[in-house]
């Protein structure tokens, strides 16, 4: 066990975690030859296409150092704030962390929040100054920032480049020298922490765990503490690029178990696995359950696809326990589901996975946060959906979720960022200078205000030099109203939103203008109205198409024009008919985005 090292790679988004992991895998010959593609651990199509990590990925490496063989368990983690719970789980399975900082960007919001998580779990931190090959790298300046943040010595920081491979050998050495081997007794009663689970269509549910104490052998009868269910460990093994079966896995090491688990509900990430015969005395303290932050309706384009959609969402949930759903219905869209997501990126990803993995074309409605309504009769109602709001006359008060947001930026942009946050009902809690001209602003803000365009606007007003992170910070009373949208006089429930009264006029106007852009002109005029109750607060008109006659059929080329018209009709199939108006599916979501 003294030759095992468990560590994760943590950083702000895009600071080069997965690329650095590539180099580690290459240098230890864990992945060779044609398997070695860029960000090899990002194995989901979507991760590869978008160039971001969505899920943590664990892999084991062998490393020879000073004549001894070491087993290194690496976990690459995502950087995006929506997936920070993935980081917290990975951290629980490790004794050390590589804190990667992009030498051209410096300390950013997720650098700090991920670092704090690691420190809370007593992880040994190895600071890495990455991307030193970049012409814009500012090694001294960023090292100063790291020293200020960690209180470490300059020599402890390793300068590296995931691109050129510089410094990667030093990182491997530091992992062995600085990170403590796991503690634990291989002969004690079995105690394993489940830190992740995945669904594989051939093998079923596979749980990843770290053995804290004891030894698990293939064929053992094991029990999952939280569910109390017992299983035969059909196959256990270690994680390489593929799974490699092993006869046993002992304290300190990381592995997987396949045991005929049918539903994702049976595997709780954070649960403890132990032996049925000789159980451990107490379970390991698990994780807080991940709670969805935003909710949106997900509807099939074709009403008859409702059951298919249910089956698809259930399958996705096998791989992604953070996704929640319950059936709901809408006058405009028929039957669908209210889904809970970790954030907007998560929502976008689920929508895209439904499309590409299940061929389910869906409409996602305007997302909202979860409100808590206190009725005059003294009931408390959790509302995820504007149409679930009780009648105004029955409401005593409404509370909305708040977050504590941290924005890190250079002093140049403080003014405009403060204006933005103020406009988002933010209250400045404090302002800390990190080093040089970098400052961290802490705000309390309603979660609802950051759901839509906060992040994009922050990026654009700071020209990319601001990063942002947040944590839930309780509920607060708020003055909310329901804003409705009407198309040719018909209210479209799927476009209703709950909003703070001060924002209602601006939002209503914006939605009308945006819908005017998003809804294609049709053969009649379309009136778009935004209303609070019976009061119309904004109005736009989409004029009817007057002429759409296009080119001739050159020299008998009928096919080309036919194909154009067929495509036009195909496009219409992707629209939702609301009354007589055809609304493109993207309108439901994009209506709240700013340009």
């Amino acid at each position: 066990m003294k030759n095992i090292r468990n560590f994760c790679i943590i950083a702000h988004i895009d600071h080069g975690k997965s690329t650095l992991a590539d180099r580690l895998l290459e240098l230890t010959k864990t992945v060779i030859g044609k398997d070695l593609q860029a960000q090899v651990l990002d194995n989901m199509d979507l991760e590869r296409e978008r160039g971001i990590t969505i899920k943590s990925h664990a892999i084991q490496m062998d490393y020879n150092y000073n004549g001894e063989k070491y087993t290194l368990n690496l976990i690459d983690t995502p950087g995006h704030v929506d997936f920070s719970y993935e980081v917290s789980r990975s951290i629980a399975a490790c004794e050390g962390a590589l804190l990667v900082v992009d030498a051209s960007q410096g300390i950013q919001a997720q650098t700090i929040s991920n670092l704090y998580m690691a420190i809370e779990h007593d992880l040994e931190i190895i600071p890495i100054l990455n991307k030193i090959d970049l012409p814009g790298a500012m090694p001294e300046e960023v090292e100063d920032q790291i020293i200020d943040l960690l209180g470490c010595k300059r020599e402890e920081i390793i300068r590296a480049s995931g691109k050129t491979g510089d410094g990667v050998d030093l990182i491997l050495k530091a992992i062995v020298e600085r990170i403590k081997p796991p503690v634990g007794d291989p002969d004690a009663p079995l105690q394993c922490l489940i830190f992740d689970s995945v669904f594989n269509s051939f093998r079923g549910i596979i749980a990843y765990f770290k053995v804290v104490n004891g030894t698990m052998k293939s064929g053992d009868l094991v029990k999952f503490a939280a569910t109390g269910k017992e299983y035969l460990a059909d196959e256990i093994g270690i994680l390489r690029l593929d799974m490699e079966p092993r006869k046993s896995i002992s304290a300190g090491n990381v592995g997987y178990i396949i045991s005929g688990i049918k539903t994702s509900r049976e595997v709780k990430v954070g649960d403890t696995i132990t032996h049925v015969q000789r159980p451990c005395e107490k379970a390991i303290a698990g994780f807080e359950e991940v709670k969805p932050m935003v909710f949106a309706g997900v509807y099939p384009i074709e009403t008859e696809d409702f059951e298919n959609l249910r089956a698809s969402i259930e399958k996705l949930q096998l791989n992604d326990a953070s996704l929640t759903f319950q059936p709901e219905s809408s006058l405009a869209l028929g039957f669908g589901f209210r889904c809970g997501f970790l954030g907007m990126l998560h929502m976008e990803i689920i929508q895209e996975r439904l499309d590409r993995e299940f061929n389910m074309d869906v409409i996602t409605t305007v997302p909202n946060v979860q409100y808590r309504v206190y009725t005059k009769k003294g009931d408390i109602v959790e509302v995820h959906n504007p149409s679930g709001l009780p009648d105004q006359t029955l409401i005593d008060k409404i509370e909305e979720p708040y977050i504590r947001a941290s924005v890190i930026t250079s002093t140049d942009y403080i003014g405009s960022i403060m204006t933005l946050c103020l406009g988002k009902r933010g209250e400045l809690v404090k302002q800390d200078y990190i080093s040089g001209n970098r400052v961290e602003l802490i705000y309390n803000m309603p979660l609802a205000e950051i759901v839509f365009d906060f992040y994009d606007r922050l990026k654009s007003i700071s020209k990319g030099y601001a990063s942002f992170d947040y944590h839930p910070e309780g509920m607060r009373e708020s003055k909310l109203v329901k804003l409705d949208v009407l198309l040719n006089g018909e209210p479209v429930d799927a476009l209703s939103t709950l909003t703070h009264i001060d924002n209602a006029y601006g939002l209503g106007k914006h939605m009308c203008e945006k819908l005017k852009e998003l809804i294609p002109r049709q053969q009649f005029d379309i009136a778009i109205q935004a209303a609070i109750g019976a009061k119309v607060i904004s109005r736009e008109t989409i004029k009817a198409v007057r002429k759409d006659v296009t080119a001739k059929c050159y020299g008998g080329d009928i096919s080309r024009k036919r194909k154009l018209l067929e495509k036009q009709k195909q496009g219409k199939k992707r629209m939702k008919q609301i009354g007589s108006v055809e609304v493109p599916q993207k309108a439901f979501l994009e209506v709240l985005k700013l340009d």
Partner: protein
Amino acid sequence: MSALYIHIPYCASRCAYCAFYSSTFEGNRKDYIEALCREMDLRKEYLKGESVRTIYLGGGTPSQLTIGELEAILNHACSVFDCSSVEELTVEVNPDDVTDEYVQGLRSLSVNRISIGIQSFHDDELKTINRRHSAAQAIEAVACIKRNGITNVSIDLMYGLPGQTLDLWRDNLQQTIQLEVPHVSAYSLTYEEGTRLTRLVSGGELKPVDEDTCADMFSLLREQLSAAGYVQYEISNFAKPGMESKHNSSYWNETLYIGLGASAHSFNRDSRQWNISNTRVYIEKVLSGANDFFEVEHLDLDTRYNDYVMTTLRTRKGMDRAHLKSAFGETLYSYCMENAKSFLSNGLLEIEADTLRLTEKGIFVSDGIMSELMKV
């Protein structure tokens, strides 16, 4: 009865809106003509022995060829296909190619119809779209054609040109009417991918005409030409009574047609096919005896139905419902009528006797209507 189309892919320069293939490099003209003749030999069975009623030489710019070259092509065509009862032989010409001698030459080849690409009677508009002739040249060309004995003349016009106003367009129409030709084709400018005009517009150097103005121009076109005695027998085609293009009508009458030459399209009722559009590759393949110089699209029932909807609704005659039912079956018939319902009720389509056709109002938004009736 069948139709024959021959494509001449040569132009002296490229017009700014043109997405057609047309090479300004003439070096391989001789080879091209030889390839055309070879293609005729290879495909002599395509018309299934049906006699040819119309021949159309289009382009590109057929008038870039000499009379001798045209003669060689036509002679060969008549030796391969049954051209004994050709009623209409059209050649497309460019105004700057027209001379007394040339028109005489065309007459000697039995050409009895000339389609002339004028597009506009304003020199600055012509310059914007990079045409290689002036308005005066165009007017003189029409006079020249007529005085040399070819009276069946068609003029091509374009509207919605960048910078064009409704008044300028009105003037174009007036000048057209004064020329007293029996046939006018008028197209609204479309911005095709990869053309110079599209680049200029996306680069902000030119401003496209807005949709409302374009619609007004289309109204004006219909008004003025109908007042002058023309009938809009197809969305973009206007003719004095009896002077409709016979060749055009084969495209919507399910007539067999063969298209020869680079990028030419053919139709034999079961399939459509089109030749490679690259002239050089076309020549190479045909002359080397390769049989892969074209692509074929087999037409299933739905596709034939879509073609039928699209081509017939563009015509004034409209769609024959009895034929729809007998040729495409009960299911597609009811599909069509079901989808037509809303247009019938809001006055965009109408049924008269047993034909379904666009109303005056419907003509303006015909693409949307045709698309809606299609089966996909």
